[in-house]
């Protein structure tokens, strides 16, 4: 084990997989000469040379398509978006080509590609640079979507994503790149895609939260503990396929659930989780499932407004108290 930043864990995963398999390569804007816009790929150009760490022009549709073509021809590309907000320029490549070619070719083609980069809001970046995309990409059958909350999960899951034969959307966060944590250094340390982690066991309320929201969940759980309520915190880690079994099992025990999700609320990850819970655990619910999400507007720029817009510890705490019927 070693203490690493989130960005170092991602780098370690990429380096290990590139050393293990020469078909793996990294492509994106500023990934090579500049060492990555957020220094995720620092030193990788020197290590692997310009054939495997490739700078591109500002042309998401182009290099995403190039990656897909390379994957179809037997390579295993890692495509970095400087932020997932820019992935919308390559939307057709991702949702029509990457997601559907295996299906439309009757399984003749595999598509081992990872699209990775920071996702969601990161402070005052205004409306067009603050979108949470997990709900969007997990909508499409054919894509796997991963959104880890800590360095260890990031490393273990990115390695699994690179080795997976299907297209994977791997969502990071500008605000978490410097987050430190213990990371397993074993080059064969793989975390299975589609497995949630029960981060904290509890009896009274289940909190489901991924990525940055996970840290809100832990704070809320601490506050509730001071008042004598024990919250079970589940980090789904993978958004698609989602580990509903773990969540449902937990809700059957606690009878209540609050979902924290930075996505806009409509037709989002939280909507789906709440739907699955009411379907699979209806008779176990003692309160309606509540969720705490970004507000249903484009992300504002002003500091006070973006703070209000994002899910907060306070709002999540209030939601938990509500389902616990304490006020």
């Amino acid at each position: 084990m070693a203490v690493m930043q989130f960005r170092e864990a991602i780098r370690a995963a990429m380096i290990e997989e590139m050393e293990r398999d020469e078909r793996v390569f990294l492509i994106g804007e500023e990934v090579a000469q500049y060492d990555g816009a957020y220094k995720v790929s620092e030193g990788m150009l020197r290590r692997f040379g310009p054939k495997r760490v490739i700078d591109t022009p500002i042309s998401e549709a182009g290099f995403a398509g190039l990656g897909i073509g390379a994957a179809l021809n037997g390579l295993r590309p890692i495509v970095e978006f400087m932020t997932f907000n820019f992935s919308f320029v390559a939307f057709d490549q991702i949702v029509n080509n990457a997601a559907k070619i295996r299906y439309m070719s009757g399984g003749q083609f595999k598509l081992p590609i990872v699209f990775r980069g920071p996702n969601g809001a990161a402070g005052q970046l205004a409306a067009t640079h603050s979108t949470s995309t997990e709900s969007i990409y997990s909508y499409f059958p054919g894509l796997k979507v991963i959104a880890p909350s800590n360095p260890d999960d990031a490393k273990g899951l990115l390695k699994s994503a690179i080795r997976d034969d299907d297209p994977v959307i791997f969502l990071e966060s500008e605000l978490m790149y410097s987050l430190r944590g213990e990371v397993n250094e074993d080059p064969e340390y793989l975390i299975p895609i589609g497995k949630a982690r029960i981060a904290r066991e509890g009896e009274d309320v289940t909190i489901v939260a991924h990525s940055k929201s996970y840290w809100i969940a832990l704070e809320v759980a601490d506050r509730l503990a001071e008042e004598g309520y024990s919250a079970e915190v589940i980090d789904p880690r993978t958004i698609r396929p989602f580990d509903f079994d773990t969540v449902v099992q937990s809700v059957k025990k606690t009878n209540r659930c609050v979902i924290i999700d930075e996505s806009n609320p409509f037709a989002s990850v939280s909507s789906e989780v709440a739907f699955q819970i009411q379907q699979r655990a209806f008779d176990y619910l003692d309160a309606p499932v509540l969720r705490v999400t970004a507000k249903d507007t484009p992300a504002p720029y002003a500091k006070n407004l973006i703070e209000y817009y994002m899910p907060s510890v306070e709002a999540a705490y209030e939601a938990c108290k509500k389902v616990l019927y304490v006020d």
Partner: protein
Amino acid sequence: MAIPIEMPKMSDTMEEGVLVAWLVEEGQRVSAGDVIAQVETDKATMDLEVYDDGVLLKKVVQEGESVPIGGLIAVLGKEGEDISGILARYQKRAAAPAEPSPVAEPEAAEAVPVQAGDGAPAAVAVSEGDGAEARIKASPLARKLAKEHGLDLRTIQGSGPEGRIVRRDIEAALARQRPPAEAAPAPVVEAAPAPTAVAAAAPSLPYEVVPITSMRRTIARRLSQSKFTAPHFYLTVDVDVEKAVAFREQLNALAEAQGRPKISFNDLITKACALALRQHPEINASYLEQEGEIRRWKAIHIGIAVALEEGLVTPVIRNADQKGLGQIAEETRALAEKARQRKLQPQEMEGATFTTSNLGMFGIEEFTAIINPPNACILAIGAIREVPVVKEGAIVPGKRMRLTLSCDHRIVDGAMGARFLKTVQQYLEEPLNLLL
């Protein structure tokens, strides 16, 4: 056309009523306005009047039975009339309270013209077919648990939002049921092991079961709510009541001469509190979390705790700041008497903005009281003590009384409470000010 008589909603917080006594026999003729029974609600025992003329065809419930609002109590009609339709309809509703029976609706709709043609005096009576029996709100888990344990949801009071029955209510109901089940060894054999954890393990000692009255349940709910949500703190002051005692004697000599009721010491305190509240509107207030605001009440209504054998009620002296001592004395005496006869009407117990509780008559020197929500404070009144006091360097006999103010720290801070209490003290120490 027979008329069903349902359990009416007699107070804001009532959910069910206990039919305490029948005053009319089956087959007896009654007229609109007649009282046919007495019903105990969570607040008081009240008269059940009928709104139509007719013969009491059937008493559906026995004395002592509890009936939810909208439940059938009796049937009124013409002698010999067939009432099986009404009984069946209510039985069906009771069996499936969640789903308004689609069959019942058209029936009720047809009934109206028949009734009109009958020439009966506008006997539209109890509203039917409009879903009069409200849907029982319960969480899915609560429904499942109730079914597993054979509990009737209509007998359970929900503690969730809008009266939703939730897991803890079922667990509480099961806990209430548990002791008799344990006492009788026989049913244990067939009893399925209850999966719900009911924590309190009662000691296995002989006991007598006392049913929880609705008044007791209301007291339990409101006072625990108060003590668990309002952070209480307490301020005590020792009041020199020598002048007040003399003042009261003078007043009572006058009152007696005029044949008016005597003024009690408690009446002086009611008046003193009312006047002090006028000076300290921040105490005459409520912290309303749900509404997200503090309300400073414009009127000053003082609740006075009255002990009864089975519990406690708080009749209210309205606008006490505007009433003279004589009027306060008269009203307090009348309300206390009504309370003892269980005749207080709900509106006579509602709307207090401040409450006092007096245990002085038991010789209690001082005590702390639990705030009567949504009040901000309650004043606990102790006994008048004869004590030696130092006056101008000499020890002389004096009279003292301790007042303890319980404050809800969400809206009343220490200094605020202290200032208010000081004002009350000043009024009692210079009682002539009560007349100004």
